[in-house]
């Protein structure tokens, strides 16, 4: 009877037997990011915007509010008549557009971040209750969510904004509340999916209490899809905030926000087109970066994709 020989070291039987260090796992994630270049671009764009908001006073050459009527409507540096003093030129009141763009990131990110925070929290709570409790509570929440989501969103945001009046808090609240149903819907769907999954049944069968099931099993599996959604929704809010500003319904006109700058620039479109051009480009690149980032996160954070490897 032949005995079984120990396998030679190079012939691993299963990838399970290949020991991986933390560094190697990190390198794997890095390669994943590198393979998806667009995700990389998205991340870089997003980080640039965040850095601009954090270090606005250090980066911007001028006070974004400082008017200088003598230097009004100076074109960007690379145009005839432009000067390196004002990289992106100045607006009708002689304010430095570059500085205002930098400070504008603060308004956009504040609205995006707190809007998503409110919408996400509200949506998470509502969606989790609907999905976890089920029954009549679920029907009521789902009914409400479907109702809000079947309304013309923009029309409603404009309607509400026109009633509430211009302030940063109002804008954040409007987006935070009107966007909550989307988070609620996604959360509910995920909670239902997770709740139906075998591992929740398994947790119940070993005697886990609701607290453990919610915090140890459901929430961690919710985070991936919610982070992805938050990225897309934040991008959408930045976009819509600018839209409201464009209609004169967002933050007060004195605040340097991209929407306000667009609205102001619209009047000088033919004579000084750069006033409206740069805030639009800023919105575009921010939005682009976050969409790319969201696409990438969706692929990376989905454990279903990882599971399908086998």
């Amino acid at each position: 009877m032949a005995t079984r020989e120990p396998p030679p070291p190079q012939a691993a039987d299963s990838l399970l037997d290949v020991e991986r260090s933390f560094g190697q796992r990190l390198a794997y994630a890095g390669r994943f990011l590198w393979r998806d270049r667009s995700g990389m671009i998205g991340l870089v764009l997003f980080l640039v915007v965040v850095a601009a908001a954090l270090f606005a006073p250090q980066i911007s050459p001028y006070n974004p509010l400082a008017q200088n009527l003598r230097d009004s409507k100076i074109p960007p540096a690379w145009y005839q008549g432009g000067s390196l003093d004002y990289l992106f030129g100045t607006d009708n009141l002689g304010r430095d557009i570059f500085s205002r763009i930098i400070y504008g990131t603060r308004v956009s990110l504040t609205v995006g971040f707190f809007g998503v925070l409110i919408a996400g929290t509200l949506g998470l709570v509502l969606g989790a209750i609907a999905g976890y409790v089920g029954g009549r509570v679920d029907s009521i929440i789902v009914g409400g969510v479907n109702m809000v989501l079947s309304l013309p969103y923009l029309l409603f945001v404009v309607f509400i904004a026109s009633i509430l009046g211009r302030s940063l808090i109002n804008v954040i609240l409007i987006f935070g509340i009107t966007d909550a149903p989307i988070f609620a819907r996604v959360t509910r769907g995920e909670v239902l999916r997770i709740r139906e999954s075998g591992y929740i049944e398994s947790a119940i069968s070993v005697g886990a209490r609701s607290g453990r099931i919610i915090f140890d099993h459901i929430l961690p599996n919710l985070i991936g899809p919610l982070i992805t959604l938050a990225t897309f929704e934040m991008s959408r809010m930045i976009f819509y905030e600018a839209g409201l500003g464009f209609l004169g319904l967002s933050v007060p006109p004195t605040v340097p926000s991209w929407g306000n700058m667009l609205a102001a620039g619209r009047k000088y479109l033919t004579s000084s087109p750069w006033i409206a051009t740069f805030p639009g480009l800023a919105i575009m690149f921010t939005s682009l970066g976050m969409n790319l980032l969201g696409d990438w996160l969706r692929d990376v954070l989905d454990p279903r994709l990882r599971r399908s490897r086998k």
Partner: protein
Amino acid sequence: MAKVLEVKDLVTKFYTLDGVVHAVNGVSFDLDEGETLAIVGESGCGKSVTMLSLLGLIPSPPGKVERGNAFFSGGTGRCDLLQLAAPELRDVRGGQIGFVFQDPISSLNPILTVGEQIAESLTRHLGLTREQAHRRAIKLLEEVGIPEAAQRYDSYPHHFSGGMRQRVMIAIAISCSPSIIIADEPTTALDVTVQAQIVDLFKRLRDMIGMAIIWITHDLGVVAGLAERVLVMYGGRVAEVALVDDLYERPQHPYTHGLLGALPRIDTDGSRRLVSIDGTPPDLLIPLVRCPFAPRCAYAFERCWEEIPQLMPAGIQHQVACFYDIERGGPRSG
């Protein structure tokens, strides 16, 4: 007897993000006219990929047939399926080789009537008019045992149960009287009593049409009463091929041996302990450099870790890819 299909050294790989999946690693076999051949193996052994590769049905990319020949002798003479131009290969598919897939629920188009799905094959290969195809499709539905076939022609797949849908799939496969039907786990998704119906239907159609059947399965039980020859696959290679009685009575490959021992059976006393095969199936991301079964094999010796065993004769119409002779209890000579 004339060979209807001869496959030689087929290699198929999938180039995925995780690496190269070595799905089929040099498979050769042949099939006689009117013969029923069972291809048995566990998930990931390459049995389905082998068959899909032959007819250009693997998703590509990521899949790629790297090399091999598949000589098919159908109504129009002998040709190599793997060298055939796309239009000619399409004439073979459905016309001379019919397919039945595992999952009858997802394998039918949900928004076309079942009748249309049968008829389109008829108009494509036999050149029937819509009218003729309609009549012939109803006839086929009757043949596969669907009651009130004329009314059922206009039904959509979701009106049918799993077993009925599989009957529709079979009607599509036999619609052009092919010389081969490839059935990929056709009863796995079905209940035992329905499985018996479908197996019965296959036997009846085989007697009626006389086509060869390649029955892909993981279940050595189902094919025992159906197949004339059995081919066992492991790790993307052929482990053993033999006439059905011979294979079940004196399996020569340790894997086949283990598989038969692992099955509980109702024809013997139930108190016997099952033979289990230790370990797990091979990871196909790792290229094959030795016998794929060696890590799980109780008989493996040095040679098994160093080279890939080729098929060797082990009796009448019996071949096995193993360096160890179980019956004699030592390395195989030659």
